[in-house]
């Protein structure tokens, strides 16, 4: 390697020296360059109609199916992190037009248990490009049930590794898309989506929707209001339309069998109540009377 090149951490993993490339690689490289040029030329020849882009965005964000998936909210370190989801980002990229985005796994090291990933978003018309490269460890944080301590759990299953890589990369691609989109475009989209959520499915008042949601979860999945409160990290009186949207998405995932209620809602720390003691006592008395 000549002295004026900058060494990257990934260089040591490069299999062949850059100077010795095969013919097919050379063809691929030329093709990639041509593709980039063509994309920019095409994009400039078919420029986006901004007013039509706005129109499409307004229509998309008025749809409940998108609004339900537009925001996320997760408990983290005692507080919460909230924001717009990758679903909203992708939809807005499509509405804005001439935006290319994606993720790529650059390198996988099974020995070190990590993947090097890159995510990008590219406005082909203005040729504004945002990308990030990052290392994704093949691991997740898990909780040890008896002691309730968190620990790092290594992933070995290929499907688990792929899912983990994709979900970390999805968050990165979301950020790159929001970087190339105009801020005003995103802000208006979020406002409309929030308004769509506040309208709710039935247009019923929020309190009624909260009660309906709890009822649905209890009847259908055996999940109590207390368990949902623990997951959302706030009492039901403080639930927002976004929280209800997240529950609707979760419910549809349960219905499709993509997620399981017992895994999403570990049993809450249900305190002993006077009613419970009385009920247990009554059922013991009945059992005893039946025996005699």
């Amino acid at each position, binding site marked *: 390697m000549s002295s004026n090149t900058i060494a990257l951490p990934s260089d040591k993993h490069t299999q062949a020296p850059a100077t010795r490339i095969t013919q097919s690689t050379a063809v691929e490289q030329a093709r990639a360059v041509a593709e980039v040029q063509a994309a920019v030329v095409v994009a400039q020849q078919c420029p986006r109609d901004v007013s039509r882009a706005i129109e499409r965005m307004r229509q998309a964000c008025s749809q409940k199916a998108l609004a339900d998936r537009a925001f996320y909210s997760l408990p983290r370190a005692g507080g919460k992190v909230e924001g717009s989801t990758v679903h909203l980002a992708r939809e807005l990229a499509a509405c804005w037009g001439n935006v290319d985005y994606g993720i790529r796994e650059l390198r996988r090291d099974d020995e070190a248990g990590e993947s090097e990933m890159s995510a990008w978003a590219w406005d082909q018309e203005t040729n504004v490009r945002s990308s990030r490269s990052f290392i994704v460890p093949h691991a997740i944080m898990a909780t040890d049930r*008896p*002691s*309730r301590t968190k620990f790092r759990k290594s992933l070995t299953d290929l499907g688990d590794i792929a899912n983990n890589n994709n979900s970390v990369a999805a968050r990165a691609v979301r950020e790159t898309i929001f970087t190339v989109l105009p801020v005003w475009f995103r802000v208006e989209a979020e406002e409309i989506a929030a308004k769509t959520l506040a309208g709710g499915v039935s247009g019923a008042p929020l309190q009624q929707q909260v009660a309906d949601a709890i009822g649905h979860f209890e009847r259908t999945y055996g999940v109590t209001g207390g368990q949902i409160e623990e997951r959302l990290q706030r009492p039901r009186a403080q639930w927002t339309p976004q929280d209800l949207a997240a529950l609707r998405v979760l419910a549809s995932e349960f219905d499709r069998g993509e997620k399981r209620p017992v895994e999403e809602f570990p*049993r809450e*720390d249900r*305190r*002993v109540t*006077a009613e*419970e*003691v*009385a009920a*247990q*006592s009554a*059922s*013991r008395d009945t059992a005893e009377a039946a025996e005699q």
Partner: protein
Amino acid sequence: MNIDQPGIYDLGEEAYHADPVEHGSLSASSAKYLLPPHVPADYLWYRQNRPTSRAFDFGHAVHSVILGVGGELVTVMKATRDKTLVPADGWTTVSAQKHAEEIRAEGGVPVLESDRAVVDAMAEKVREHPVAHALLTSGEPERSAFWCDPDTGVWRRCRYDVLPDVPEDGRLIIPDYKTTSSVAPDAFNRKVIDFGYDLQAANYIDTAAALLGLDDVRFVFVAQLNKPPFHVAVIEPSARWITIGRERFALALRTYKRCRETGDWPAYPDPIAIAPPAWVDYAHDDLMAATREES
């Protein structure tokens, strides 16, 4: 009697406390002597000198009446100058102490006549408390349980005041009766710290879970004020308390195993350095600052 199979047994109190497991087992009440501020040498001493104090007899008497088990209450008598026997009004006379010893030897529970009224009043108050009464009558009283800790191979034991019959939903609520000088939450919390009740709660829960194959076991104290008006309170230690108790019990098991293997039950190491705690430091600085202004 020797116990070499994990399980729940109906044992007499003395048999349980004598530890019927051949190579020894650890209970919560003895485990606390293996943990700071105690040292393993305290544990050894405690095992060899189990107390039979007055408070112990009083608590014992209350337990017997409330759970309807244990030895019979026998009024302690003392001899007067003309050798007639009258109920003792205290524990100080030699003849009263001798009689108390005799009662214990026969498996009874010595009680002063004045205490007998207190015990009856306390039992009445518990019967009137619907939740406490339901909890303390939810199963077999005074059951002893033994099992081998999977992590250390050390046997564990505990004696339930009441081991409830497993309810249909599988959620077992284990009560434990305590007499105390205060049932106020903060004051009782202090008792948990002082007497290591967290160890007991965790040991009761984990033992029941292991032996009965349950995964939802709760523990509550039925605490009663030991003076009028004998308030009763049902107090549940939080999940954090149980975790603390569980981790401390695990530490006691490891210490016990190590001491037993090496035969070394250390007391305090020499020499020990001590420093003033932060609050003394601050108070002293404040005092110096104040007197400097004066002079």
